[in-house]
């Protein structure tokens, strides 16, 4: 089975755990997935599924997850993480292709004003910022699951990550480096086409990770809209219309509403379904 199939199987079988055991197992899952970014994902998901099957056996024999696994899951989860091998091939692949893809995708917003040159230095700084933010967010989420005061830990992480999440785009917009490149229209069309292909490929990869589907859809929407806008502002007929009476602004506001509403509603729907499913679990 590949990673996505293992995650799906894990999701399906974890429905069989009772509420208390599901919470116990869920903490281990979140910890390993958040901290195991550089580990072999297939092996990690295999070991998690194996542990889940054992917890289900223990549950069937009248043992709670804590009775079976022990009352110090944090320490054991840490040891499990250390026992998982680092996946250097994956680290290289993620670093190279990830950087390549996100560089292309970050490029799109800077292509919606044809007269402005593309700031390559700004894109590189943005890439580093995104990388650090993703690692910090994963580390923060993994700290919550075994924290003594989970709500307090969650609050601190949300404030810190939310602050950083707001600060990065704000500083990104106001950033200005001398490393700039002016693109002619044909080159800009090729770059936009490459960006859209990269976005489509990224979506194809992310859609298998069903938990992140709404985020993947949002990402695709943003890239497609910026790509379309990048093309329209370079075609003389549509460019004239867009430059009249703030049409660009209406175009962006209308699309942002769509981008915000559809995936947000989808995520809220998923959240409600999750809460309902959890409420219906046996104690």
């Amino acid at each position, binding site marked *: 089975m590949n990673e996505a199939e293992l995650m799906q199987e894990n999701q399906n*079988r974890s429905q069989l755990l009772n509420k208390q055991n599901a919470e116990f197992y869920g903490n281990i899952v979140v910890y390993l997935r958040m901290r195991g970014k550089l580990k072999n994902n297939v092996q990690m998901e*295999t*070991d998690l599924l*194996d*542990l889940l*099957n*054992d917890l*289900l*056996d*223990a549950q069937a024999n009248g043992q709670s997850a804590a009775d*079976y*696994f*022990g*009352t*110090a*899951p944090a320490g*054991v989860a840490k*040891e*499990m993480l*250390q*026992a*998982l*091998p680092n996946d250097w091939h994956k680290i290289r692949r993620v670093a190279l292709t990830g950087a390549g893809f996100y560089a292309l995708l970050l490029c799109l917003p800077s292509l919606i004003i044809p007269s402005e040159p593309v700031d390559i230095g700004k894109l590189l700084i943005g890439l580093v910022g995104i990388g650090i933010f993703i690692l910090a967010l994963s580390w923060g989420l993994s700290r919550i699951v075994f924290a003594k005061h989970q709500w307090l830990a969650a609050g601190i992480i949300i404030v810190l990550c939310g602050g950083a999440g707001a600060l990065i785009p704000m500083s990104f917009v106001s950033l200005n480096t001398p490393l700039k490149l002016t693109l002619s229209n044909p080159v800009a069309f090729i770059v936009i086409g490459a960006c859209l292909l990269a976005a489509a490929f990224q979506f194809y990869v992310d859609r298998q990770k069903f938990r992140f589907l709404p985020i993947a859809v949002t990402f695709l929407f943003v890239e497609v809209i910026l790509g379309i806008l990048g093309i329209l502002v370079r075609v003389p007929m549509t460019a004239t219309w867009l430059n009249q009476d703030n049409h660009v602004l209406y175009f962006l506001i209308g699309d942002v509403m769509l981008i915000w509403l559809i995936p947000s509603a989808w995520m809220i729907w998923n959240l409600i379904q999750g809460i309902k499913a959890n409420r219906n679990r046996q104690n």
Partner: protein
Amino acid sequence: MASNETSQMLKGVLQGCLLILLDQSPSYGYAITQRLDDFGFTDVPKGTIYPLLMTMEKKGLLKSEFRESADGPKRKYYSPTTAGQTAKHKFLTEWQQLETNVTSIVNLEEHDHE
């Protein structure tokens, strides 16, 4: 629940015990913990078995494969590799030596009390 001292002692020998059990018949997590229970390791928190099995696999002492289990989904069956069998023999030799030494000292204590 086992005392902390017992847990520390157990940690050292558990790897050897697992190599012996798995060399007799390959097995998966839950079944291994049940076998350990049969041999009196009831106080060992079973969570400690998982990182140990994973570490032994990482070190090349164990290999694993997914197989159909008797009652339920496919399970990850562990069995010793050649390196694992060598480690098992080394453990048996060292354990016998340790047992002889410790028994001699314990006997000394018992003779003093008599």
